[in-house]
């Protein structure tokens, strides 16, 4: 079900699966957009290519997930990606943070892709079979992102700036595991085979940190957005919203 409020596409979460799809897709779209901001600016040409490709992948993955939401009655992928008001986005707060420097970018890339791998592994077993299929497809592609990040983490292992950046990123990573809206229903029905809290525990084991038993609730999954999102939102959606109905 959808309705328009002052030109925005509002998505009513009549189907709890929409909460999950939008959270996943909004994460991919936001991190993809942030990665794309390195195009033309990365420190070396090969990384300009790499981050542009990774950005393209993430936005392509978001498109697939928005497509599933559209199949459940939400607006089309373009309208979902660019046509909602900021409070309707459900991305984790870590995804909307600005790129900062190369160290922060690499640390976040590494941590985000580990978190994504953990949740995609779980979603492969979803009772929502179309999402299970998509998770399987995405995970095979995300392997290259993981390897890329690992290569950089090894290369810069002894760099103090990277270690500091990892500390900052790990303090924000919990936002990826805040409970999704309607999560209880999603877990009961098997759409989410593993709850966010348990995914968070798996994540902590894999990164070797102890971030407590409950992820910090920054509100990203409930639509609480920061000023960083507002600035990204203008850049990402301005063209689409400025030319309603245009085709490219």
């Amino acid at each position, binding site marked *: 079900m959808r309705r328009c409020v002052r030109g925005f596409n509002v998505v009513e979460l009549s189907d709890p699966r929409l909460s999950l799809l939008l959270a996943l897709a909004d994460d991919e779209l936001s991190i993809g957009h942030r990665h794309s901001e390195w195009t033309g600016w990365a420190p070396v040409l090969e990384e300009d290519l790499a981050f542009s490709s990774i950005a393209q*992948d993430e936005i392509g993955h978001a498109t697939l997930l928005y497509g599933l939401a559209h199949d459940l009655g939400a607006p089309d992928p373009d309208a979902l990606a660019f046509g909602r008001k900021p409070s309707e986005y459900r991305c984790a707060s870590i995804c909307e943070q600005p790129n900062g420097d190369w160290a922060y970018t690499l640390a976040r890339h590494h941590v985000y892709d580990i978190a994504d791998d953990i949740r995609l592994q779980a979603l492969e*077993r979803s009772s929502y079979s179309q999402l299970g299929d998509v998770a399987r497809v995405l995970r095979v592609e995300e392997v290259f992102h993981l390897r890329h990040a690992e290569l950089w983490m090894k290369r810069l292992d002894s760099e103090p700036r990277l270690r500091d950046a990892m500390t900052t990123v790990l303090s924000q990573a919990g936002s990826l595991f805040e409970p999704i809206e309607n999560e209880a229903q999603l877990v009961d029905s098997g759409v989410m085979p593993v709850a966010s809290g348990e995914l968070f525990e798996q994540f902590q084991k894999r990164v070797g940190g102890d971030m407590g038993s409950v992820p910090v609730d920054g509100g990203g999954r409930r639509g609480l957005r920061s000023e960083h999102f507002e600035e990204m939102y203008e850049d990402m959606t301005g063209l689409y919203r400025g030319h309603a109905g245009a085709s490219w």
Partner: protein
Amino acid sequence: MSQDLFTERRVISTLEKVQDPEIPVVSIVDLGMIHSINTAHDKITVELLPTYVACPATNIILSDATAALNAEFPEREVEVSFSFAQPWTTDRLAKGADEKLKELGISASSACPFCGETDSELISEFGPTPCRSAHFCPKCRNAFEIFKTKLRLAPAPGSTNGGQRSKQESLDIHRK
């Protein structure tokens, strides 16, 4: 539902002429992109597996395949779409595809396509297209690309296939 094998072979021959726009020496059949062909009820329905979900070549492939089938079967309705029923993986490449890739200087193994040296240096997992990684050969000192190996991943420990609908396996026309 009846499947006309003669028509199916015609569909495959038609699609053998649809090349990857970024790697024009290989066809979408060589790449193992065909998931299913249905020729029942005077309609040609083809499902393709995208090599990489976000690759911009995939939309061009979709329209090229549709146009080719429309030209070959003007009297029938044609529908070509992408399926995500399973990931596309490099083990679907047809025999002989790696020789074709070498013509463009792309290696499908870890060996340098120019001198055969197997111990190359990885520059980046990401090359000029989503499907290729960038390498440097210390022996002949050429930069070259490898068609990245992309394989199905093992399911997470403790998972079962119970509850998964049975999937139509992709057509096995790729391994000649």
